[in-house]
């Protein structure tokens, strides 16, 4: 069975053998344990550290946000090409270590310097601080029936009104729009 698991992990089975082995894994607790141990050994051999949940997805997203260096194309000497490669490697290592650092940076601090740095990198020379959202995705609901009362009370204190006059009061909605379909 152990030889089979090893072959399964290496992707050496055809479709028929594959389904047999998978159902064997589902039935046999010991085989399943063996499957997990083999993966752990494989990860250890490949130097995979234990990372946080969804690490791969987030790493891919952040790398996608990295700036593309735009420079006019020109004939480069072999020496320069080699230098480019090492520079690119250095930048890559820096980016990866930055991502890694962010991954383990404390998340509870509000507006930490770390995320600011990420945005700065994405749009140099400066960008807004990205404060990590700790909130759940809320349900979308129609406007509350008292929306106009809230808006009147709220806008009375909005500094926006002193900048723009009462135009923002136009957000006050018609009776029909309240408590029914969202506008």
């Amino acid at each position, binding site marked *: 069975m152990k030889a089979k698991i090893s072959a399964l992990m290496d992707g050496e089975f055809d479709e028929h053998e594959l389904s047999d082995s998978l159902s064997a894994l589902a039935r046999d607790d010991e085989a399943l344990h063996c499957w997990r141990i083999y993966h752990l050994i494989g990860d250890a051999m490949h130097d995979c550290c234990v990372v946080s949940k969804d690490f791969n997805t987030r790493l891919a997203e952040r790398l996608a946000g990295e700036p593309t260096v735009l420079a006019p194309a020109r004939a480069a000497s072999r020496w320069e090409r080699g230098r480019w490669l090492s520079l690119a490697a250095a*930048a890559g290592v820096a980016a990866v270590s930055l991502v890694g650092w962010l991954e383990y940076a404390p998340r509870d601090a509000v507006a930490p310097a770390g995320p600011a740095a990420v945005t700065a990198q994405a749009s140099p020379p400066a960008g807004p601080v*990205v404060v990590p959202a700790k909130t759940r995705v809320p349900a979308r609901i129609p406007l*509350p029936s008292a929306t106009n009362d809230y808006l009147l009370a709220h806008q009375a204190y909005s500094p926006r009104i002193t900048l723009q006059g*009462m135009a923002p009061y136009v*957000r006050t909605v018609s009776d029909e729009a309240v408590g029914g379909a969202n506008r």
Partner: protein
Amino acid sequence: MSRRLAWKVLAPTFFVLVAGAGGPAQAQSSPEALDWLRKIYQATQDLSYTGTFVYQQGGHSETSRITRLADPHGNIEKLEVLDGVPREILRTDDAVRCYLPNSQTVKVDRRPGRRSFPAVLRGEISDLAANYTVTQGESRRIAGYECQAIVLTPKDNLRYGYRLWADAKTGMLLKALTFDDKGETVEQFTFTELTIGHVTRDKVKPWPTTRSWHVEDTDVKPANLEQQGWIIEANLPGFRKIVEVRTLHKSLPMEQVVYSDGLAAVSVFIEPVGQRDKPVQTGLANVGAINIFTREVANHLITVVGEAPATSVQRIAEAVKYVSPAEPRQSVSNPQSR
């Protein structure tokens, strides 16, 4: 050349390390742009004008007429919605009246002390620079006026950004656009026609009401929510508590706390559950740049209304807590301790 290239490649990385060590590096607000904001505030207080503007949000647009009379005996400002269901809002120094002809209702919002409010804010323009980078943009012609653009770029994603266009001569605001952290437009106001000055008192007359109209009046008094057991630990950088009041609306109590960063405001409303006619749903709704988040805490309905991104409004809503006070007051007579 290769040295320059090396710098180009490494500069962003170096910048990140420096920024990471020394805090977020931000572009500076320009003093000229801040002066422009002062000029806009001043124009909003001083000018008489009448004009037509279009309000656009989420694929909808609506045309309205606005008329303002600046008068030493009392300013009057009138807003008439021209598209769809008629609505009219009239603002005097002591109250805002919202006329809804279809339901023959006039909602009256009286706030003593509001008159002094704008004066306080004028001094706070330089505070704005703590939360926004204020810069001058390109000039552009809008509704026949040569306008200067002023851009308020937020320093974090807790607030929206604003692009304002003001008449180069008077400072009158001709266009205001709100944008989100992706740079997308959330809502905008644009004058299509405007006349500065020449406003007479008959142009700002209120909507003619009859005896059959229903008047909803409000009574507003200062309040202290903490004494009543309400704690709002909204740790939202840049937003300060500016006012705390209790409103009696249709003889029902409603507590209100307002936070502001100098431009955007977020209000927290607290009222006992069940005092509204219709059953209440909890979650998020919006009107243009205003997000409204509703939840329930200790038998009370918490409604947070703010001209801020949904996540900011939600964060403030989720920071509302109730702890049983030493001497419970009437408005919180039936809360469940958490």
